[in-house]
């Protein structure tokens, strides 16, 4: 066991930044619902410290349960005066726990599929076929929310939630691939923000598999704003799910693969429309900090990574046609807390003419998505998810916008299970729709 603990000890200095002030407690969705400090950021850091000090074993059921119960939303980092890098410490601790044999089957299954295109592609294809039959929505309506069936229902609901939104025009074709030289906008004005910069779109695994329309919208909108969108063959899963579940080795392999792919493409900007992926890619330098070959290259890539809202949430973004819709915005944790991006997505939505943006109570709190949290922790995940759905419904919005596939799926499933007809969209889709209506894509 000692060699595992040494992994945590390497992070000891960071751990000791925590002075136990407790300011993180009210920001933690699990603590505010469970009231147990073992389910608070301070408590989890205390567990880690006890492991380092040799007072607790990493496979102690208490440690496993409470570290596992963390959503990884990192809301605690946004309120920590001492700047404790909780997310990175959690990844390290989960690796120690996983190697000590504490990780569950599902937590191991998911990264195994997502990191392997051979498994991922057929899985996604199958999911799209099933989704196309409409059977998912019927199942969500019929299945009971109790026990085992409730977990299946949530899983199916999450898949159904990736269906195209009812209020927007259907994309050209569900899974068209945008070629590198494809001209989306022949009459692009010269004074646009991109000035012909080569921009790559990071496609991701679930995003590309189930929400390909968001990637296409991203490419179109970038193109319309003067970026030259280039294709990046060889890119793959960002490794977030691996890192979050203690598979740091797998995450590093995927990071290296992406670094190579994006280096070859020579893009000045790497646009990411999945907050979780963006956060992970911006942290590649930390992940590969000890790698003599890839350390610098990781920093190079990370410096080019931008969330799509960072690119488009500025005054220079082109204005499209009217889109008279009442929309609310939920901040993905990995955008707000991990990447500290709050104003830009709102600016992006406010740039859409006719769109009425209504504030969402608790928009800064996790939706309970956190990978497959609702399936691994049905009771608690369900409570967190229902709170989010209630808040969304109370806004009276026709659509909720959020920039992360996990959140789109979790919120979409929650709305479906509650029988509420509110669309879930990515903010870039609304901009895309506004451009289409404004005739910017001719």
């Amino acid at each position: 066991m000692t060699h595992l603990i040494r992994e945590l000890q390497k992070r000891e200095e960071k751990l000791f930044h925590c002075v136990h002030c407790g300011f993180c407690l009210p920001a933690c969705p699990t603590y505010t619902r469970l009231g147990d400090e073992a389910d608070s950021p301070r408590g989890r850091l205390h567990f880690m410290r006890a492991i380092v000090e040799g007072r607790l074993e990493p496979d102690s059921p208490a440690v496993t349960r409470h570290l596992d119960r963390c959503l990884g939303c990192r809301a605690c980092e946004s309120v920590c005066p001492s700047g404790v890098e909780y997310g990175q410490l959690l990844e390290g601790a989960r690796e120690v726990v996983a190697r000590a044999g504490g990780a569950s089957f599902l937590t191991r299954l998911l990264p195994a599929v997502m990191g392997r295109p051979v498994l991922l592609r057929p899985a996604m294809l199958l999911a799209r076929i099933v989704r196309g039959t409409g059977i998912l929505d019927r199942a969500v309506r019929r299945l009971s929310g109790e026990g085992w069936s409730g977990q299946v229902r949530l899983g199916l609901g999450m898949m159904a939630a990736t269906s195209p939104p009812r209020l927007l025009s259907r994309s050209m074709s569900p899974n068209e691939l945008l070629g590198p030289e494809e001209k989306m906008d022949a009459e692009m004005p010269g004074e646009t923000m991109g000035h012909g910069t080569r921009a790559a779109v990071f496609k991701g695994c679930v995003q590309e598999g189930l929400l390909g329309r968001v990637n296409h919208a991203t490419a179109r909108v970038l193109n319309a704003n003067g970026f030259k969108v280039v294709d990046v063959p060889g890119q793959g899963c960002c490794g977030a799910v691996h890192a979050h579940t203690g598979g740091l080795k797998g995450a590093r392999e995927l990071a290296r693969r992406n670094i190579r792919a994006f280096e070859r493409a020579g893009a000045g900007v790497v646009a990411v429309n999945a907050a979780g992926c963006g956060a992970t890619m911006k942290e590649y330098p930390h992940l590969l900090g000890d790698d003599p070959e890839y350390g610098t290259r990781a920093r190079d890539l990370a410096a080019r990574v931008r969330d799509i809202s960072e690119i488009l949430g500025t005054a220079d973004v082109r204005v499209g046609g009217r889109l008279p819709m009442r929309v609310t915005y939920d901040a993905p944790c990995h955008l707000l807390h991990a990447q500290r991006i709050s104003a830009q997505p709102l600016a992006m939505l406010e740039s859409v003419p006719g769109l009425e943006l209504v504030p969402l109570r608790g928009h800064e709190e996790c939706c309970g998505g956190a990978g497959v949290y609702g399936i691994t922790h049905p009771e608690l995940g369900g409570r967190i998810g229902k709170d989010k759905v209630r808040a969304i419904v109370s806004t009276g919005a026709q659509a909720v916008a959020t920039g992360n596939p996990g959140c789109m799926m979790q919120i979409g499933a929650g709305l479906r299970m509650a029988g509420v007809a509110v669309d879930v969209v990515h903010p870039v889709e609304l901009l895309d729709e506004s451009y289409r209506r404004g005739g910017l894509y001719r």
Partner: protein
Amino acid sequence: MDGNDLTEPLPLQLLRDLQAAVGTDWIFSDPDRMVVYETDAQTAHSQAPHAVVLPATTEEASEVVHALHGHGILMIPRGAGTGLSGGAVALRGGVVVGTSRMTGILEVDHENRRALVQCGVLNNDLNAAVAPYGLHYAPDPSSQSACTIGGNVAENSGGPHCLKYGVTSRYVTALRVVLPDGRVTWLGGQGREQGAFDLAGLFVGSEGCFGLATEVEVALLPLPEAARTLLVIFETIEDAGRAVTAIISRGLLPAALEIVDRNTIRAVEASIFAAGYPTDAGAALVVEFDGVEAGLERHAEEAARCCLDAGAREVRHAESDQERMALWKGRKKAFGAMGRLAPDLLVQDATVPRSRLPGVLARISEIARRYDLQVANVFHAGDGNLHPNLVYDRRDPEEGRRVEQASAEIMKVCVEAGGTITGEHGVGVDKRKYMHLVFSPAELEILRGVKQVFDPMGLCNPGKVLPDGQEAP
């Protein structure tokens, strides 16, 4: 020693009684899990409890306490664990009764400017609930984003604005308490003056030694119409201290007068709560006036003049509410930001007469130098309430000893200057050893007698406040 044998598990019948009181989900006793409850925000004192129970109502809390009493098991109340004197630590074992589920705001009576809340409500949440009525709950401990009203009652908490508004005891009008044997009673008049002995007043500041206050009735004040906030930069902390004395002796009544020194400024400015305090300054003073708009400007100008006369380098005015909030965030998150200086810290909490501030601050710097320690000062200068933070690393036991010794010397200096051993953090475990410095044997006798009245069996938060010969020297 008194207390529950730390190696003995709790009686099975007691566990069953506790489960019957709160349900199986809300009692934990797995020893590994107890590790997270071994300290509060004062990490120098550490002991895991036997179990933790989280009741949701006064009735559940009463059943829990009654069961503990019946089995002779110690009861340790705990709010959010943000306390700075070790008050929520199960020093001698026993069961922690946490208030994290008692978060209901039971009543806001805006016409009579009062509210009734459960003890686990956060100070900030109470303020958010009453703000729509143009009201606020005045005591504003720096930890108000995380600390609970129940904890504020236990510690009689203060905060930056208590210079003008006074501390918790001034605002608590009634308490519903679970006595150490489980009986439930109201203390105080619930909105009316009761006369006779002020039992609610006695309970406020009792640091969990008299029982558990589960419901708290508080008086609210109208939100001030306007505010003026100055950030004054000084080359030395002594100059800042002199400015404070000058402002007060001029007859001005600021709502808050707060000093942060160079080390604190550096920690805060490195954090996400950076407020634009200049990192090359010796100290910064935050001065705030609030109330009706008329006159505020003149008071602020007069205070600015006092500061310049005392040698201030620069006076800045907060131009917007946003700037004002940023200044306050920087100040209020200062304690939490100390982790940037070292892994551990001992924050002291002593009060001296304002006029003695410059001299005492110089003595503190001298003591820190002599013990080769880094000290970061952040404090409520207006009421002479000092918070020297001694930062250290507990992995170095020798440094830990130096901190202990320096801390004791600082205490002595404050008491010799006519001060006392705690301004607002409470005595807890940490300051029992200094009690004899400020209390006469007769007073200590009376304090023990009062404790005896509430808790004859000595089951309620033992090892806190009152010296009993078992405190570390």
